[in-house]
């Protein structure tokens, strides 16, 4: 079963690979060449995956710019408050002295407390972990997988002989909140370095557009198609800018949570069984979503209702 689906997904990816290019002439010629002599042609023509993704990003952005003509593109970092002036005012009042500031302080302390071996988090990260949030998640060529900031924090711990922290909420999120805060205002510029990265990207994209759960909703159904409209008492936030404000302090939680925590909650809302924290699917989804938010600035952690 799984294999069949993977196969189908692969075929679709290939179709999209072909269809994504704007330049129609080379595609058809590539197609005919592909039919004649498949392997050598593919190897010769270095596919620029970043370019393909950049096209998706442009399309994604213009969708939201058209849907919300009154919001500046840069404002989408503010989530639903970019499109809802009534709640934006309440939000700005809370952001004046947001409850997550207490967690940032805790995060600094955790971050600076050395491990048993004398090393610390700063030793694991570029620029000692300061102002690096905008580079996450990234595709690690060596291990051929998406590395999120939360995963990197735990990898850092484990490589220093410490037990990994629990994902979702608590100490780990306090640390990543501090790291996000030190990167505020810096622009997300996530890269797609190779074919494997593009596969991870496509996998995340497929997750985003796939309907799931008993309620049969995809991420895109709520946060793209009908973003901005009201579902029960809530206005649905646009998908662009979802990752920029992470981790998020939700009033409903009364504390901070990671993007994975939010994914799990979203899945529960549509009655889909949530996947494990940092599962490959969620990491790929975060990779896709952050790529779609390329060009926006980090403003995490943030508060939401």
């Amino acid at each position, binding site marked *: 079963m799984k294999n069949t689906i993977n196969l189908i997904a692969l075929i679709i990816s290939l179709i999209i690979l072909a269809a994504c290019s704007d330049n129609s002439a080379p595609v058809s010629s590539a197609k005919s060449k592909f039919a004649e002599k498949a392997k050598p042609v593919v190897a010769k023509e270095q596919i620029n995956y970043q370019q393909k993704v950049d096209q998706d990003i442009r399309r994604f952005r213009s969708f939201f710019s058209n849907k919300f003509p009154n919001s500046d593109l840069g404002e989408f970092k503010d989530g639903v408050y970019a499109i809802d002036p009534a709640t934006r005012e309440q939000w700005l009042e809370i952001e004046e002295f947001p409850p997550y500031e207490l967690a940032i302080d805790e995060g600094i302390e955790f971050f600076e407390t050395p491990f048993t071996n004398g090393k610390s988090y700063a030793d694991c990260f570029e620029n000692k972990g300061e102002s690096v949030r905008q580079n996450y998640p990234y595709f690690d060529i060596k291990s051929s997988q998406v590395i999120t900031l939360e995963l990197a924090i735990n990898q850092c711990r484990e490589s220093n002989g410490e037990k990994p922290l629990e994902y979702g909420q608590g100490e780990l999120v306090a640390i990543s909140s501090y790291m996000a805060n030190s990167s505020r205002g810096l622009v997300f510029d996530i890269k797609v370095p190779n074919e494997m990265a593009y596969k991870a990207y496509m996998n995340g994209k497929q997750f985003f*557009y796939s309907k799931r759960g008993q309620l049969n909703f995809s991420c895109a159904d709520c946060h793209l*198609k009908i973003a901005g409209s009201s579902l029960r008492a809530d206005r649905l936030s646009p998908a662009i800018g979802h990752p920029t404000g992470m981790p998020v302090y939700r009033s409903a939680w009364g504390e901070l949570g990671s993007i994975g925590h939010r994914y799990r909650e979203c899945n529960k809302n549509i009655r889909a069984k949530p996947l494990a924290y940092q599962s490959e699917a969620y990491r790929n989804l975060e990779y896709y979503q952050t790529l779609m938010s390329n060009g926006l600035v980090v403003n995490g952690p943030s508060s939401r209702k």
Partner: protein
Amino acid sequence: MNKIKIGLLVIGLVGSVVWEATPYELIKKAEMIRLKAAEVGFEWSTTSTLIAEAKQAAKDGNYELAEKLAAEAIKQAENSLKQAEFAAVNWQDSEPK
């Protein structure tokens, strides 16, 4: 007379075995399909609850309810699998053009 007694006993035994076997088989089937859906990441959050409830009902001897719950769980698990198959083919339909 004895033959009739034995006959009744046999019918009773077979009957009870059939009664007992049915909900458990359904539960097993539901569990199997649920796992398949979980493997592709499309399990519904409601299915395992139904299965657990079916198990409890069977344990309590309420086979009728157990069967009903298990059948519902099977339906859900099958639908979640169908959903996965549908998504694999049609997912990009809602992508902005």
